[in-house]
């Protein structure tokens, strides 16, 4: 085998979108392949866990791991890949911050299972079957399945992480830059997020249309209004999180006339994305009257789901306070 840097891609609790990013490199993927050997990529190439186990420790130059950690198996794989890799990169929002799957932290395993295997309108499950860790197959050999955790974790809450590539999913450009940076040999400071450290407004095409003194009397949702394609979305009363969100995506959503939902996460100066954006947005409410303030803010449905859409497990509270300890 060549002495090109060895790269691995793996997915944990994620939707596959991050894998798409790799695919979306299009012909550029050839440059990548030219530069590196892909030694492990279950979604595309037929490798098995044992192949990885067989590798000597640190054999992999860099592993891009996407997805949150929410099952025993994902935890094991995270540990395994950490051991085998020189660099472990949390790839994408789920792995960096917990992502959409992280919202499961508003419930616990039992609630999630019940919702999925009992209550979901699309569920037909008269026997009330639920996936079990151990399952005896026709009495003889027993099959084992990973078990779901009560609390979804980010990658760095599971193993040590070297770098982060943000986004849901990361844009091909961000990925490419990341790969190039790593190949360049000039490694950034450990723990760095491989994306710009200024908020999205910086690169937002609508930046200049935001009034200097913007206050908000009424929050609107995208389906409620005809969105002006030029004007600052926040100024249109839409809950755009761009001012709190790390740039680097080139405002794709905003260009598509949709407010930023914060998938690139906070800047390095902010500990908790949700709390910070909450602070900024609430400050803009145009009222000093307690009742009216309450009314205006009530127009923001599901604050946690909105402000912590991608970062609940990474937030100080991490999860909803468990009812039963």
């Amino acid at each position, binding site marked *: 085998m060549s002495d090109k840097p060895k790269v691995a891609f793996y997915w944990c609790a994620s939707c596959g979108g991050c894998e798409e990013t790799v695919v979306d490199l299009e012909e550029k993927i050839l440059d990548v392949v030219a530069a590196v050997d892909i030694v492990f990529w279950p979604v595309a190439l037929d490798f098995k866990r044992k192949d990885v186990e067989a590798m000597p420790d640190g054999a992999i130059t860099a592993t891009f791991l996407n997805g949150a950690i929410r099952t025993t198996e994902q935890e094991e794989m995270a540990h395994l890949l950490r051991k085998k890799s020189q660099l472990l990169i949390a790839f994408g929002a789920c792995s960096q911050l917990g992502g959409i799957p992280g919202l499961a932290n508003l419930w616990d395993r039992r609630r999630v299972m019940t919702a999925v295997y009992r209550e979901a309108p699309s569920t037909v499950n008269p026997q009330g079957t639920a996936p079990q860790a151990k399952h005896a197959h026709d009495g003889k050999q027993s099959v084992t399945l990973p078990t779901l955790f009560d609390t979804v974790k980010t990658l760095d809450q599971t193993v040590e992480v070297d770098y982060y590539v943000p986004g849901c999913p990361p844009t091909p450009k961000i990925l490419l830059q990341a790969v190039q940076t790593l190949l360049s040999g000039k490694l950034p400071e450990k723990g760095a997020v491989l994306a710009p450290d200024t908020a999205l407004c910086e690169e937002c095409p609508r930046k200049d249309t*935001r009034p200097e003194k913007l206050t908000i009397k009424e929050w609107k949702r995208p389906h409620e209004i005809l969105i002006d394609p030029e004007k600052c979305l926040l100024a249109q009363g839409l809950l755009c999180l761009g001012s709190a969100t790390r740039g680097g995506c080139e405002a794709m959503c905003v260009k598509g006339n949709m407010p930023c939902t914060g998938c690139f996460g906070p800047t390095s100066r*902010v500990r908790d994305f949700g709390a*910070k954006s909450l602070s900024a947005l609430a400050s803009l409410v145009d009222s000093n009257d307690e009742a009216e303030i309450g009314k205006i803010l009530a127009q923001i449905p599901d604050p946690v789901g909105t402000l912590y859409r991608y970062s609940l497990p990474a937030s100080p509270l991490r999860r909803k306070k468990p009812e039963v300890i």
Partner: protein
Amino acid sequence: MFETNGTARIGVYVCHCGTNIAGTVDVKSLAEYAAGLPGVVVSREYKYMCSDPGQELINSDVREHKLNRIVVASCSPLLHEHTFRTAAEKSGLNPYYAHMVNIREHDSWVHQGEKEAATEKAKDLVRAAVRRIRYHKPLEKGYVPIDPNVLIVGGGIAGIHAALTMANAGKHVYLVEREPTIGGHMAKFDKTFPTLDCAACILTPKMTSVKAHPNITLWTLSEVTNVEGFVGNYEVTVTRHPRYVHEDLCAGCLQCIEACVYKQPRFDDEFNVGLGKRKPVYIPFPQAVPQVVLIDPETCIQFKKGTCKKTCVEACGDRQAIDFEQKDEVKKIKVGTVILATGFQTVAAERVPYYRYGVYPNVYTSLEVERLINASGPTGGEVVLRDGTKPKSVGIIHCVGSRDEYTNKWCSRVCCMYSLKLAHLIKEHTHAEVFNFYIDMRTPGKGFEEFYHRLLKEGVHFIRGRVAEVTDWADDASEEGKLVLRVEDTMSAMVRRIPVDMVVLSMGLEPHADAPEVRRLFNISCGGEGFFTERHPKLAPVSTFTDGIFLAGCCQGPKDIPDTVAQAGAAASEAMALIDAGSVEIEPNTAYVVEEACSGCRTCIVLCPFSAISFVQEKKKAAVNAALCKGCGTCVAGCPSGSLRQNLFEDEQIFEEIEGVLNYA
């Protein structure tokens, strides 16, 4: 990311404050505990850290142990932060490398008898400070220039004295008075205790020199309606209400009053608290300053019907001083300092219904009697009842509306003495039997107790007891047609009925009804009772917590004339000290933008009420004007990308403090 500033070598100093702290907090174990905290090089406990030897301790440790951070666990930073910053500075450190922990007001004093818990709390607080201070960074002191002009609000004796003091020192004074004349309460008094010199004789010369003084701009019938800015640089809006007479044109000849279509005065005259009458065009009292008449639109026919013959205007002739069209006039002034001398009001006698003021005509308030006794008063100095007869017996009730759960809890300080004064004067004018009803006789002042003894000799009766009620219920012939005061005489332990012809209620002093608005306007605080709060009850009695704003007279609490004048002088010199220093040090706790981090989202700009943050178009980033920033930190908390920061209250410092008190590793 914001870093700790080199390796911290921290000195921790635990103050005993005599027994104030050491009596409750185990200072020894606290110091020992602190010694074990990361970064701490020296940890000591000492009797009085604020004393010179205490500060010297810091000084020598800095030299000896190369300390670069100082944590002092003692009283409230509002008291001594400056002391210890200076101490740090003296020992060659940046003053902002010193930090205080409040283990007295917030700990030992409020958890007495809970030694263990209080000590634990102290440890948490010290730990937090030790963690916090590692993130402190050197800061430049901020300075702002002081505008030499001063605003004095209130033209009573306090305002007058402060105004003259400063004007004589060459400062320009704007003296703003709400009433048509200056002079305040003192102008209404006849004589002053205990010396019995005539109030007018000592006050009116000062009043006239205020008017005459080149350095004083006197605005009567005027009110401060807006205040902006900060120490050294206040922008004040004053609204001058119309008096319907041009001050500059009126010569004070008073012929218009003569000429008024009302031949007789028939409207209650405010200056004589309703005992006398005046015309719609009038001058409050003969020595009023300015010597200018005014017209009361409430009672003037021209204003009510527009059909008056305007004989006043004729009388005024070519001077044409009278102007029915006059409107509010708004003045904007810049001043560096402000002295509030807004005074007091007396409690409304109706609030003490069992003394039947307003029910029985012969029940008077002390202020009414001052006017009756006054030679220039409605009765020309005759103390007579409303029916014109002289009272043969008079009862003076002390502490009405003072020291009372139902009105005001505090002692009004002057009532005992002015009641004695009134007793003396009434006796002198009428030879009546005078009874003083008191709870305690409070005469702490030069010559006060002596005056009390003088009255005892003069044969004024003193009955120690709180009067239960004033009634016209006559139990026998001797009480027929009299007002009976029912009182428990606590000296003879019996309930007595004292029939008198006249009752005088010694009304207590309380803050003006609109004191809260004034407080808001000038951004100062008041105590629960509503008097303005001084910065420190002992050490800064005329300063407020808002730099550049000072207090004089009864707006700060009840006091007599000598104390008021003394305080006014003190306020004046405090203000002048600021002015002459030319500039004043301000906290460098201002906000600043981390430029490379700012995305130019402009969230912060609308959050600043002082317009200290602007959007720099060429850079498309926000910028803070430190001179305008007051250091509240509201914008910092609101910056969505954490690109705004606040000196002395950096995120890291606060996070460390939080995790410190919680002992979170």
